[in-house]
């Protein structure tokens, strides 16, 4: 069990023979000093360093490196030694960084001889320091303990040694740097790029490089190559703005962006590094503030502001567009609610007035009754036209907004006919959401609101291939509906495959009767499926059994708190199971497994997409009702069955179909397949 130490924390040591591992993203000098009860080091013979690597019970490496292993045998130490300080320093001179603030936080771990970590410590919050006491091993009442120190020195090794009351501090520091420089001259000029330091403890250490994928990373500091394009990294700032020893000095006390380069940059004693420096906390790589949203151009007086894409809050353009789309959705729902309630009111008022006119006996003679009726109708028409005017005004605004938002949408949010799909590249990150279709209301036919659903999916999908009274009046027969249903499902699945990074989304298909071969062809031929569509009852049972087992395993691992104990070879990507022609080929057992997957799957990344007509599975009785209810129902033709969360209007849903004759789906899937192959899945 590793104890992750924080600064100042201590931990008992189990044995005398230990190894201290050091991982830094950049070459560092590692050494150790032996001190007495008061921490005083008596002379240079109490210091192990590259020039004198071996002391009784202690050995350090001879040169600067990104990784070190220091061997320690506490039993072999002289009895006068009460404190062993493990120190790290950046090699002086040369091209490397001159301050720990410019490099990844070093990581030190104390391990037993069997390699088990006893304690580990990540030295965060370093700034201008070029030497640091990382750990100390100390004797307390006959037993040895380790303490995380993290005390840095801006003056380098000389200051560090002087602090330990070593008289020849400056001389020693000079000779160490000399030894290191000669060692460096012997060794390979620069460590290979993108060689992330060996980090035994993945959870506790910062990741090296963007996403760990090994882009072109500067050899010295993995954090330099990303971000911080700002012009003024070395602006001399007010001294003493941040204490040099303050933990997290550049970190969570506020995201610091390139635009507002802070005063920490120029500690007066900080030797100037030669490159822009990112002050973000090494473990928090997304802490940079979002670029400001696009400002709406000033509106002409009396005119509504011209809409701008991304005019909403969010940390990224994607999030802003997502929020903007939801804002449009809500505004349209509410505007329509206002219109409908005004029209309802006008209707009921006219009814009442007409009733009154009719029931008043005086109106039965002469033209009074006609006049009253006419007046009532006029009032009705006036109110309705007023309401319509307001609605038209709002809808025009939303149309204008949609016109700028729609072309700006990223692929995951965009329609298939959006040019962004022709410039499709397999993404590196999972998008926030995916577009499952369009929504509109009859009053505002011109506004199509993208229906964005957050990823990862929280519910399975049900593509209803049942006979529904389609809105345009055309009656599709059941065979046609089934074909349309599966085509829609394929388009949804292709989109999900395309918006996930390569290898992070896997699609399984159960097509028991093989009736969907034609519609499934784009998926099958491009080779993006994990396996060919499973056919027959046996095939269905096999796929279900595998997915059920996966859900079981991942659930057990998560509940047991041991997500890294999953068997090797288990595919940890998100899984989507497309079931065509349900319930053909399904027996009771398979149906139960399907229900289990629908209930338990989404939480562990297994999703269902049923292409089914509910009536056909009526033979199972009410058993399947919870299944249908747990799925998000979508239709292959326009249908008004979705309600918004604010007012509860019935919105007309339109599936996102690939424009006829377009090859965009095939092109995108070919790219996905190529990326999957290169990913090795």
């Amino acid at each position, binding site marked *: 069990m590793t104890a992750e130490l924080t600064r100042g924390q201590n931990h008992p040591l189990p044995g005398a023979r230990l190894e201290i591992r050091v991982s830094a993203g950049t070459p560092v000098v590692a050494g150790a000093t032996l001190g007495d009860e008061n921490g005083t080091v008596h002379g240079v013979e109490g210091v192990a360093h590259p020039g004198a690597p071996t002391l009784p019970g202690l050995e350090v490496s001879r040169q600067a490196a990104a990784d070190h292993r220091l061997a320690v045998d506490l039993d072999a130490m002289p009895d006068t030694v009460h404190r062993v300080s493990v120190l790290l320093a950046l090699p002086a001179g040369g091209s490397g960084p001159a301050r720990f603030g410019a490099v990844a936080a070093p990581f030190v771990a104390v391990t037993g001889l069997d390699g088990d970590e006893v304690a580990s410590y990540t030295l965060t919050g370093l700034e201008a320091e070029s030497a640091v006491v990382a750990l100390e091993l100390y004797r307390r009442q006959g037993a040895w303990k380790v303490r995380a120190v993290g005390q840095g020195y801006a003056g380098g090794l000389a200051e560090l040694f002087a602090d330990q009351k070593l008289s020849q501090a400056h001389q020693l520091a000079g000779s160490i740097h000399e030894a290191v420089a000669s060692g460096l001259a012997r060794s390979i000029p620069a460590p290979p790029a993108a060689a992330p330091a060996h980090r035994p403890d993945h959870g506790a250490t910062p990741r090296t490089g963007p996403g760990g994928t090994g882009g072109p990373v500067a050899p010295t500091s993995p954090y330099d190559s990303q971000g911080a394009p700002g012009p003024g990294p070395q602006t001399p700032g007010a001294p003493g703005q941040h204490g040099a020893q303050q933990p997290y000095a550049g970190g969570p006390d506020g995201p610091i962006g390139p635009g507002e380069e802070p005063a920490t940059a120029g500690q007066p004693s900080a030797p100037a590094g030669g490159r822009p420096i990112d002050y973000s906390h090494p473990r928090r790589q997304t802490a940079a503030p979002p670029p400001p949203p696009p400002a709406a151009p000033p509106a002409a007086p009396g005119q509504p502001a011209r809409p701008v894409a991304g005019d909403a809050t969010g940390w990224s353009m994607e999030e802003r567009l997502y929020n903007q789309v939801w804002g449009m959705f809500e505004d349209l*729902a509410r505007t329509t609610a*206002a219109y409908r309630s005004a029209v309802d009111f006008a209707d009921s008022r006219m009814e009442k007035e007409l009733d009154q006119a009719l029931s008043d006996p005086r109106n039965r003679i002469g033209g009074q009754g006609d006049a009253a009726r006419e007046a009532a109708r006029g009032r009705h028409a006036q*109110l309705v036209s*007023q309401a319509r005017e307001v609605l038209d005004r709002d809808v025009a605004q939303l149309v204008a907004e949609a016109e700028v938002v729609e072309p700006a949408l990223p692929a995951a949010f965009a329609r298939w006919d959006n040019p962004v799909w022709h410039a499709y590249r397999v993404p590196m990150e999972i998008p926030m959401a995916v577009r499952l279709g369009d929504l509109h209301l009859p009053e505002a036919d011109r506004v199509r609101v993208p229906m964005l659903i957050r990823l990862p999916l929280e519910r399975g999908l049900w593509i209803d291939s049942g006979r529904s009274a389609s809105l345009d009046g055309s009656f599709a027969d059941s065979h046609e509906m089934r074909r349309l249903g599966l085509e829609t499902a394929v388009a949804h699945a292709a989109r999900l495959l395309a918006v996930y990074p390569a290898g992070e989304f896997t699609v399984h298909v159960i097509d028991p009767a093989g009736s969907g071969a034609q519609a499934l062809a784009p998926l099958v031929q491009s080779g993006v499926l994990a396996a060919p569509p499973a056919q027959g009852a046996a095939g269905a049972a096999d796929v279900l059994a595998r997915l059920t087992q996966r859900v079981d395993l991942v659930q057990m691992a998560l509940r047991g708190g041991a997500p890294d104990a999953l068997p090797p070879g288990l595919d940890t990507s998100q899984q989507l199971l497309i079931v065509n022609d349900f319930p053909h080929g399904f027996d009771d057992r398979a149906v139960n497994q399907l229900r289990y997957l629908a209930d338990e799957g989404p939480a562990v990344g297994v999703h269902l997409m049923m292409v089914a007509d509910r009536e056909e599975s009526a033979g199972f009785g009410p058993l399947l009702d919870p299944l249908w209810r747990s799925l998000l129902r979508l239709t292959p033709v326009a249908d008004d069955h979705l309600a918004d969360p*604010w007012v509860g209007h019935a919105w007309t849903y339109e599936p996102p179909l690939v424009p006829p004759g377009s090859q965009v789906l095939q092109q995108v899937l070919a790219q996905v397949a190529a990326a999957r192959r290169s990913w090795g899945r």
Partner: protein
Amino acid sequence: MTVNMTKGQAISLQKSDGGSLTSVRMGLGWQAAPRRGLFGSRTREIDLDASAVLFADKQPVDVVFFRHLVSDDGSVRHTGDNLVGGVGQGGDDEAILVDLQRVPVHIDQIVFTVNSFTGQTFQEVQNAFCRLVDETNGQELARYTLAGGGAFTAQIMAKVNRAGQGWAMTAIGTPANGRTFQDLMPAILPVL
């Protein structure tokens, strides 16, 4: 320029420069009950609630209160229920925002009410007030002091109604009794 309104006084919400108000906030503030000693959590909290009832031709069409925070059309929004009150130094503890431009055309009156949900009368509440603020520039248009009122648990504060092309506001200040706006309906109807 704040008008300390008295009962029945009406002010127009036309701005002095001729422009009409577009957005107003009805704010309600009161001082929390003083903490009792050892078992402070047993202090009898004072929970006042602000509500807005939207009328079309003297019929209630919609209501915005702590269980329905946004009117269906989105023009009237409640910022959320405060159950205990504030420091009593003039800040709003509950607020209702009205976007007058977006109010549906058939809504011609919006009545603001205050209820004591926990049942204390206004005699027991310290520093309670209700005010109307022009949301676009933060100017206070009208203020009504509740504290020191009689033994009532509710008050019909004010109404904004359509007047010509714009809106006008009338202070009402009729005391009533009731836990939520529903209990006030009989008292509201005569003031429409």
